[in-house]
């Protein structure tokens, strides 16, 4: 009997140790294995246009965003208007965006808000480049995680000339502009 009791206690200790070890390992592995998603760094982007053409989805999972705390709410918005257009109106011939995805809305004289309709945006980056060259640089591209199918190898990442893409953790899946992004651009 005593022999059997001894074995039981030892077995119990062994089982408990095995469970603790497995649990700790599972937790450690589980913590390390936080899901990763593809994202692009807007401070590195050189607006080459491949985010439109090289995504496996059509239209692309890459969309333009406007960071309103950098936006100047300019009347003369180069992200919205064709360069050289003299009429500051919403006529299609004046709009830079090939899909008319940007909405210009009067706020108060002389300021306008520019809202991107992401369902229409194809991620071409024309507005991003125009705003960067002639404005405050408040437009920027991001992979929309609710649209992206998180390909094993992002096909845009493979062809991006500016090495913008990396895998980011699920808990922090977007990269925002900062006030200094305009100046933080890498040298040509």
């Amino acid at each position: 009997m005593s022999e059997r009791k001894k074995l039981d206690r030892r077995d119990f200790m062994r089982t408990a140790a095995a469970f603790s070890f497995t649990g700790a390992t599972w937790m450690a592995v589980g913590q390390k294995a936080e899901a990763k998603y593809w994202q692009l760094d807007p401070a590195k982007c050189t607006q080459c246009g491949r985010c439109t053409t090289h995504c496996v989805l059509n239209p692309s999972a890459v969309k333009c965003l406007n960071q309103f705390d950098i936006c100047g709410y300019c009347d003369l918005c180069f992200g919205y208007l064709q360069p050289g257009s003299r009429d500051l109106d919403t006529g299609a011939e004046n709009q830079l965006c090939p899909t008319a995805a940007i909405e210009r809305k009067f706020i108060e004289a002389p300021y306008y808000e520019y809202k991107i309709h992401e369902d229409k945006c194809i991620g071409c980056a024309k507005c991003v480049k125009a705003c960067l060259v002639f404005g405050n640089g408040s437009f920027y591209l991001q992979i929309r995680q609710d649209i992206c199918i998180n390909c094993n190898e992002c096909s845009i990442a493979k062809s991006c000339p500016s090495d913008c893409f990396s895998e980011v953790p699920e808990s922090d899946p977007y990269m925002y502009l900062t006030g200094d992004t305009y100046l933080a651009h890498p040298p040509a």
Partner: protein
Amino acid sequence: MKEPVRKTKHPYLVGVAIACVVGGYFHLVSKEKKFPEPGPNLEYDISELLEIDEVETAFEETGQIVPDFDEAKALETDADGNLYISGKNTIAVFDRAGKETSRIAVDGTPTCLELAPNGQLLVGMGDHVLVLAPDRSPLATWTDLSERTHISAIAADEENVYLADGGSRIVLRVDYDGTVLGSFGKADEARDIPGLEAPSAHFDVAFDNDGQLWVVNPGRLGLERYRDNGDIVTTWYRPDVTRLDSFSGCCNPMQIAFNSKGRLITGEKGPVRIKIFEVTSGSFEELVVGSSAFHVPQQIGDLVVDSSDRILVLDPRKKAVRIFEQTRTDLARKEAAE
């Protein structure tokens, strides 16, 4: 009797078929999808807009001063040709040859500098102004200037100090005790004042050689001349991205200064261009330096003209003050402008 064995007539066909299936599978699995390159409709081509400044100019870059501290942001010059450069926790003084002669410690990064006629150095610190005595010891701090103060430029005469407040988009007039005497720049239809538009919380102010105060209205791409009481005397705006005699972008010029002959020197961001104008009419005179000398796009930190009419431009990408001097007199100015 032997069981008949069914033999295929063409065993090599089976081999070929298997090879096709296996090959096809790997072909399908491994083939990279070919994506089209973005066509011209998806390209934002600015080459034509940059070509407009490909003209010969009478100016050349003759030197650089590279400060050894971070966050160089503001410049000022004095009558002896000394250059003040502000940076993180410091203001360094350089002589005309570019040699550092002294340093003043400050708490933070100054956003602008102005040498007042009484010898004081007025230091814009974003939300307040630090006043340094002629011996550069701290004298006073001006705070509570407006609701959302961001001082981006200062111009001072004997009586008044004018602060360009990019945060509130107004010009504050203060006395030498730091008391706010008034402000102007808000839209006022009755007084024919269009209102200052400062999309990037930054605009410049400067006195011309006749003591008249000029204020940049960056969102309107031009200049406005004001009286003490905030009345507008004259304005001119030049918004046109396709012309060299105008300003490009949504908000320019970023910087202004006057040379000894009273000519207005302007500095633009985006495609960086330094130009000279006749200030009263706003007529373009000549290009000092065009966008090819800078990265496109980029900002300029500050721009000043020293006592020998050298144009000093703070280039944040190169982390250097770049010096431009007129080296040719044979170029007809109007010709260069065309």
